[in-house]
């Protein structure tokens, strides 16, 4: 009974609050990350030489440095040059840039997998380069990149727990506070783990639905 009251009065409200903060972190980061990823991915293939080099450099740096270190740079490092971000903004910025770099990798692969004939056909119909990329190539490439990008979004859900380390109190942070007050570490963190499992499972179901919905007959991505 006592356990139940503890869950009802303390755990549930705290986790609900943390859950909302987590969602507020994940959704903008996923969207911004995808946008950054598409931009960088396109620049890596169709940009001129210096742009391509810069985009490649961006990806090497943001994929090579651990996300924790990136978050620390944004939150604890930037005040060194006089820029103060609040934890939430720093977390969203860090997540977006990092997952953008990963997304760009999948999008680059998908862009490369589009057959050259599509491009030649668009050119022969008089499309400009920008128009060709956005109306012909990208819609096909994005469908192919979707499984990879979906994986990346699921990673993002899990890595959103790192926001706790730069003092943005989301699900994990709420759990840590609860657990250190009551010393019920095992119970609380199992519950938090269950929350994340639900989030990642639901996200993967939604992403599969989206993938099915966007499928074009005759242009299916053949899974190997």
């Amino acid at each position: 009974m006592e356990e139940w009251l503890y869950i009802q009065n303390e755990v549930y409200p705290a986790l609900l609050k943390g859950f909302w903060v987590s969602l507020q972190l994940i959704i903008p980061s996923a969207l911004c990350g995808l946008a950054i990823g598409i931009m960088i991915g396109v620049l890596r293939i169709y940009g001129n030489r210096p742009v391509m080099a810069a985009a490649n450099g961006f990806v090497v740096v943001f994929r090579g440095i651990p996300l924790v270190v990136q978050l620390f740079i944004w939150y604890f490092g930037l005040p060194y040059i006089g820029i103060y971000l609040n934890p939430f903004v720093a977390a969203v910025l860090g997540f977006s840039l990092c997952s953008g770099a990963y997304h760009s990798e999948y999008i680059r692969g998908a862009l490369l997998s589009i057959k050259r004939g599509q491009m030649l056909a668009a050119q022969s119909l008089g499309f400009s380069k920008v128009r060709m990329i956005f109306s012909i190539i990208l819609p096909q490439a994005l469908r192919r990149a979707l499984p990879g990008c979906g994986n990346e979004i699921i990673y993002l859900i899990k890595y959103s727990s790192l926001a706790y380390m730069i003092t943005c109190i989301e699900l994990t942070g709420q759990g840590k506070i609860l657990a250190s007050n009551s010393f019920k570490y095992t119970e609380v963190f199992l519950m938090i783990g269950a929350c994340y499992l639900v989030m990642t499972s639901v996200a993967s179901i939604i992403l599969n639905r989206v993938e099915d919905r966007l499928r074009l007959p005759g242009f299916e991505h053949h899974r190997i």
Partner: protein
Amino acid sequence: MGTRCGIVSPYSPILPLNNGKASAHEAFHFWGRCERMPESLIAIGDALPYLLRGSLVTLIVVVGAMALGLVLGVPLAMGQVYGHWALRRAIAVYVWFFRGIPLLVFLFLFYFGLCTALDINLSAFTVAIIVLGLISSAYQSQIFRGAILSLPEGQLKAARALGMSDIKAITVIILPQALRLSVPGWSNEYSILLKDSAVTYALGVAEIMARAHFVATRTYQQLPLYFAAGMIFLILTWMGTKSLRLLEEKVRIPGYGSSPQLAAESFDP
């Protein structure tokens, strides 16, 4: 180690900053002052040997976790491909569980939760290796599973036709080929583990990140020090993937190995 559950002193395993030796980096310091080098570079130069010793800790954690993941991942993959349906289902749940929960939650759960509840006295370092290894085993089992499934079915049938038992056919014929095929997957897994190992800082493992933070909070040179830590990680990633590529070349059997993958890459719908 003086860290026990409840009260955690994150920096107890950290060695003193300057081991009493005045040689190399004192000279650097002096030279730096003479050249009017920016303070940030001096801070990095001072902290560098200390950070590099941390990279040794990081590498031990990563290699330990990879080894544990390998030892657990191979049987899991075998079970998932050749096992009874109940076993397959159980392994799928295991993989779903370890892939669906963030590392940070697992670290807290094991270190503060289970270790206290079951009264096991483990250091943060050991817990970090075990947790990273368990998570990695779920991922590595999928790498192996893909490798086993990509082998032509005829291999197993031929082995059976030659009179080998199931176990023998798997360990002598399938496993050596599958392991070779999974080297590229490992190099991915290495770079993921390397980056994830920075999270173990939350338990106070004295790896690169913890040391960078430790020095940064004392010298107030946050940006340069975190940047230096990031660069060390970049170099470690590069070195690891490079050496795994060399390993891939070394263990390749001419005519075998990369062919299923090449086929997969050149597949053009």
